[in-house]
């Protein structure tokens, strides 16, 4: 696997991260070496092995349909970097 310049650009964009050239090169090299190290997993025979998603012993953790929270507009807005009239404010989105 080679984690090249195009890959890091694509991945950084998906993760909404953006670096100057030198940082990008450093991260690229780091990830590339981690991926090379991870290659060893290719040696494990996993035929017929189900992926393990969770080690929690539970299933069906459900709650009943009751309104128990909400109405905290002022607390929400107090935490917001920018807000107006109870709305969160962000740079204008196209479309």
């Amino acid at each position, binding site marked *: 696997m080679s984690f090249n310049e195009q890959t890091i650009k694509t991945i950084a964009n998906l993760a909404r991260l953006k670096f100057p050239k030198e940082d990008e090169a450093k991260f690229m090299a780091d990830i590339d070496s981690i991926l090379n190290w991870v290659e060893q997993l290719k040696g494990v025979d996993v035929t017929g092995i189900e992926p393990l998603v969770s080690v929690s012993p539970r299933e069906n953790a459900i709650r009943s349909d009751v309104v128990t929270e909400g109405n905290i507009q002022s607390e929400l807005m107090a935490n917001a970097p920018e807000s107006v009239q109870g709305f969160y404010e962000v740079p*204008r989105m196209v479309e």
Partner: protein
Amino acid sequence: MTELVNLHISEALDLLNKKEISSVELTKAHLSEMEKARFLNAYITETPERALADAEASDKRRANGDSLGALDGIPIANKDLYCTAGIRTTAASKMLSHFVPPYESTVTQKLKDAGTVMLGKVNTDQFAMGGSTMTSYFGVTKNPWTDEKGEYSLVPGGSSGGSAAAVSAGLCMGATGSDTGGSIRQPASFCGITGIKPTYGRCSRYGIVAFASSLDQAGPMARSVKDCALMLREMAGADGHDSTVAELPVPDFTAALTGDIRGKKIGIPKEYRPDGLNAEVARVWDKGIQLLQDAGAEIVDISLPHTKYALPVYYIVACAEASSNLSRYDGVRYTERVSGHTLDEMYENTRTDGFGPEVIRRILLGTFVLSAGFYDAYYTRAQRVRRLIYEDFKKAFETVDAIVVPAAPTPALSYEAMKNMSPVDTYLGDVFTTPSSLAGVPSLSLPVGLSNTGLPIGLQIIGKHFDENTVFQVGDVLEKAAGFNLMPHRVKG
């Protein structure tokens, strides 16, 4: 009052109940010790006023004969990953450097309800990502144990390095930690204290800043097995907020501390003794095995064949989950915002500025292993190998009651040494702790010996799912047999 800051929780409770000391005295002793030890940078936020108010309230409860919590009056610290209502919670990041949660995590709430006194919030690797507490936005924490020259040049381990340092240096009697791939056990080993990562699903994750949801577990760190047992009992239990918490009764773990492990089968997996295992660590491990055998346990050689794959599996799974868990830090609803002309620019500016390099590295890796065309080769494969690791433990526990292995491949390393390490080399520090994280089994780390340069070395006792009792029972016997009751300043002194 150095005496007070050396007490175990169990001892302090005794003295408090006999009214020989007050919680205020105990708390003040710790607050003044904190002041003296600021150079360690164990705390990100100290909360002395809240602590004294908590302590006074506790003393009043005792004086009035009101009902008391199980840890009433005990001063503790919380890892700065736990949301604490009205008190800044940073996850040691710039991103959350001004975040004041309006809610309390379940675990810290339970400890509050148990009557504890909160001294403050302790340092951690940023978003719990790291094994040195060096990735904190608030600066490194120093290990209270010094090097051969008597200098504070060593890392406390991580990510619960602030917790470990504070407990070790007498800056609190116990602390909450969290463990995703060894973040309680490895710093406990580096700082010569005790900590347990309970079974996945024993404690609620509600209100803990998430790193990797399928692995994160809360756990206590303290100066004895009994103290950990006391704390865990208060921290654990079902919670309507977290679907993954087991709806099992929480036993009185201290009742398991019988001191008798005769006939217990202790497994020693050969895969934890690779060529080139640190000789000091090997020596302490052998010593531990001998002590357990002397106590009447039956030592059984076992195999956990997929052990060596745990580390890469861990980094794939943990980073994948982290990349998604950390998407919420986008500058819209809380966190610092760095503006931009478009929404995407604002996201990029905020996230690139708010996350440190190790966090970014892990987000990039996690994003990559989930991305189209690579998902099956990396993520799905890692989850399949995770099942093999899980099955290894399941099989082993058909024949043994507990497994004993080293907690970390080395004693505490120096900042100098760590600074120059490649990411992969630093990840190797988790080699002994990630297998039990992936399997979700409980694992206790306790100090058993010293290296020839005088640094603590810990061992792990790993048990079956939800069998913390056996883990504590074996740990308690080993602790007493090893007689490790050193505090760093005594070593220095």
